[in-house]
């Protein structure tokens, strides 16, 4: 496997970093240079033909780019940053990757080991700071420890339930000399990434499934991470069970399939939420019962038995008690389950979902995608884009109203073609994550859907697009408000719009400043042509769509309400 010429020769620690990345088949890294990581950047100079480095404009952008890269490709995202502020700027992205189970290796430079703890220039305790938000982290102070630390880092990041890891390397370790030899990490004594599925659990699960009248599958991110889409489809079809998806599970189940009933959560679809409290068996696969999915847990699916397929034992019984927990990889578990489930029909039960879909269409969707308002509405933009792309583009969102609208009205046909910040809800995620996604899959259309607020949190990454010619398409849904917060102010704070109105810059002019062409539209009649122009562009393109200022996202489950108390208007 190892082919580079430096094998078994003496190299600097900094070169060992680069060689280790090559040994892990890394092809792309996102980073920003600075004092304490300079030796690694110097070593990188000799490997530019083998490693593509994308220079971001802020270290946070590097983390989100690495996340977007990983989420669409399955590969581990790699981030390079310096000590001190470079390292602290990574924290938001690391926290996002942790809560959304995204494999990422962050490498930070650190001050000389003899300066540790002296408040040296650009010294910060990044190992301490990142501890609560990393799956694992380590500080390396010797050149010879670099390769083993990185081997462990890559293994931990991508195995079991994936997550971010951080390797902090002191400058003297980067300068130090070491014999280079790379040994891939394949197990760690104290680490059990993937429990073996127990036959007994499968039998118990099958028995519940075979006896259920109204079974219901909730499919989460774990299905995508496990690559269990086909197994899920086969299981759902055989047992004729409706499937709903969490926000991060979107794209795991074919959206046009008759068993697909929609998506869960605070602004999800009507039927999937409402009928959670009517099923007699809840089959949760690779999902963690986030509060945005459950609403009030004391009124959540109390009538139902629960089967929880989960790779992370600490998630079982964390929020919702599982009558049967199937620990292990979802793909393996579903493969074992399939022969044990009976072929069934649940026609009447599925009809309930169809009825709900009709109600939601009449009360919410019809008007949202074909509004009679003077100003454009977000849903019609996304719906038109969905029809134009036929669900074949990778869509990356930011966080807020536009995110909820996009997850409702854009239904991707291909697994992993929907990327969003779910657990952490990080505004500023969208643009850099779209950059990362495009770097991973350069021949696929990647469209970032952003709000005017989130766009401005990482707007500097337009510079990354410019510098590296990354043909990301950007739709900014501009309502001149921090729309989701404004919606809550309207509904729960007596319309006291405290600091949610935005005075925005000329986005198109900013785009031009970065050499990115664009167009701003305000009229319905221009929408279709503008979307087509954006989609057909060979280069990056910024489309600003001015939308209704005070639109609310519905349906909605209010805080503290049960999923059955979902409101449509």
């Amino acid at each position, binding site marked *: 496997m190892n082919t580079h010429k430096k094998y078994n020769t003496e190299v600097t620690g900094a070169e060992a970093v680069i060689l280790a990345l090559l040994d892990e088949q890394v092809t792309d890294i996102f980073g920003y240079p600075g004092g304490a990581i300079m030796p690694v950047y110097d070593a990188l100079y000799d490997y530019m033909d083998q490693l593509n480095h994308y220079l971001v404009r802020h270290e946070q952008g590097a983390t989100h780019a690495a996340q977007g890269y990983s989420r669409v490709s399955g590969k581990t995202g790699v981030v390079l940053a310096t000590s001190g502020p470079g390292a602290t700027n990574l924290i938001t992205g690391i926290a996002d990757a942790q809560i959304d189970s995204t494999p990422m290796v962050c490498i930070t430079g650190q001050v000389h080991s003899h300066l540790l703890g002296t408040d040296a220039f650009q010294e910060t305790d990044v190992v301490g700071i990142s*501890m*609560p938000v990393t799956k694992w982290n380590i500080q390396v102070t010797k050149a010879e420890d670099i390769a083993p630390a990185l081997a462990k880092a890559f*293994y931990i990041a*991508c195995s079991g339930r994936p997550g971010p890891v951080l390797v902090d390397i002191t400058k003297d370790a980067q300068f130090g000399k070491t014999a280079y030899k790379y040994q891939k990490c*394949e197990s760690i004594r104290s*680490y059990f990434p993937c429990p073996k599925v127990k036959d007994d659990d499968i039998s118990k699960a099958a028995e519940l499934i075979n006896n259920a009248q109204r079974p219901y599958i909730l499919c989460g991110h774990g299905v995508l991470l496990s690559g269990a889409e086909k197994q899920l489809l086969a299981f759902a079809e055989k047992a004729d069970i409706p499937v709903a998806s969490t926000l991060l599970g979107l794209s795991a189940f074919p959206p046009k399939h008759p068993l697909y009933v929609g998506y869960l959560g605070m602004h999800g679809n009507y039927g999937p939420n409402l009928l959670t409290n009517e099923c007699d068996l809840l089959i949760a696969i690779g999902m963690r019962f986030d509060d945005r999915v459950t609403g009030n847990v004391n009124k959540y699916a109390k009538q139902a038995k629960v089967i929880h397929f989960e790779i992370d034992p*600490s998630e079982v019984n964390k929020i919702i008690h599982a009558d049967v927990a199937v620990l292990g990889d979802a793909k393996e578990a579903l493969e074992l389950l399939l022969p044990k489930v009976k072929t069934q029909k649940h026609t009447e039960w599925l009809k309930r979902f169809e009825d709900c879909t009709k109600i939601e269409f009449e009360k919410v969707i019809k008007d949202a995608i074909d509004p009679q308002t003077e100003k454009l509405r977000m849903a019609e933009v996304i719906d038109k884009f969905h029809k134009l792309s036929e669900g074949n583009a990778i869509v990356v969102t930011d966080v807020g109203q536009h995110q909820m609208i996009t997850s409702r009205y854009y239904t991707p046909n291909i697994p*992993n073609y929907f990327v969003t910040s779910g657990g952490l809800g990080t505004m500023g995620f969208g643009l850099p994550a779209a950059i990362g996604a495009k770097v991973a899959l350069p021949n696929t259309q990647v469209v970032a859907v952003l709000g005017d607020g989130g766009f401005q949190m990482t707007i500097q990454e337009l510079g990354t697009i410019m510098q590296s010619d990354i043909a990301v398409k950007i739709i900014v849904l501009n309502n001149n408000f921090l729309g989701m917060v404004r919606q809550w102010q309207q509904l729960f704070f007596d319309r006291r719009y405290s600091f949610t109105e935005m005075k925005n810059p000329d986005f198109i002019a900013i785009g031009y400043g970065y050499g990115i062409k664009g167009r701003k539209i305000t009229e319905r009649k221009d929408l279709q042509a503008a979307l087509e122009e954006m989609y057909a562009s060979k280069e990056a393109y910024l489309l600003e769509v001015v939308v209704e200022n005070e639109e609310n996202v519905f349906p909605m489950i209010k805080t503290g309400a049960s999923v059955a108390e979902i409101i449509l208007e």
Partner: protein
Amino acid sequence: MDNTYTLSVFTEDKIGLLNRVTIIFTRRHINIESITASESEVKGIYRYTIVITVSQEQVEKLVGQIEKQVEVLKAFYHINNDILSREIALYKVSAEALKENELFTRIVNENHAKILSIAPEYIVIEKTGDEREILHLFNDLEKFGILEFVRSGRVAITKPMKTLNTFLKEVENNSKTVIKHFSK
């Protein structure tokens, strides 16, 4: 209902791991009543003994979160009946106590404590026992004026018989899994 639980956490020897474990409590606003850490009977494996007062549900979730840490081999929780536990406490009292020598000696003996050191100004008494016994001696000595008092925190041995070595073998078998990539 809250109960006192003693957690035994077996870990690899790694800088910062104790911090990683205590963060789990901090994040959930749970106070650690005592914590001790030392090498176990197996070289290179450390044992933390942590005492907390929480509900059964909380302790189960905590143990799950602790075990999730990469370098934690295993974490257990025990109620008081399942363990034999001891603390050590040191009491420094003024040498004036010797003026009432008979009473002082009786207190030390009745509490199964011993005198560790006598200096011109002070006496240091050592006592091993459970929390209640240690407090009892504290109360008895208070009349002489306690200058300093320190206790070790609980160390505990569990009653069920399963050696760490047997357990380690299971652990090593479990950790060998195939790495899973979802590469396209």
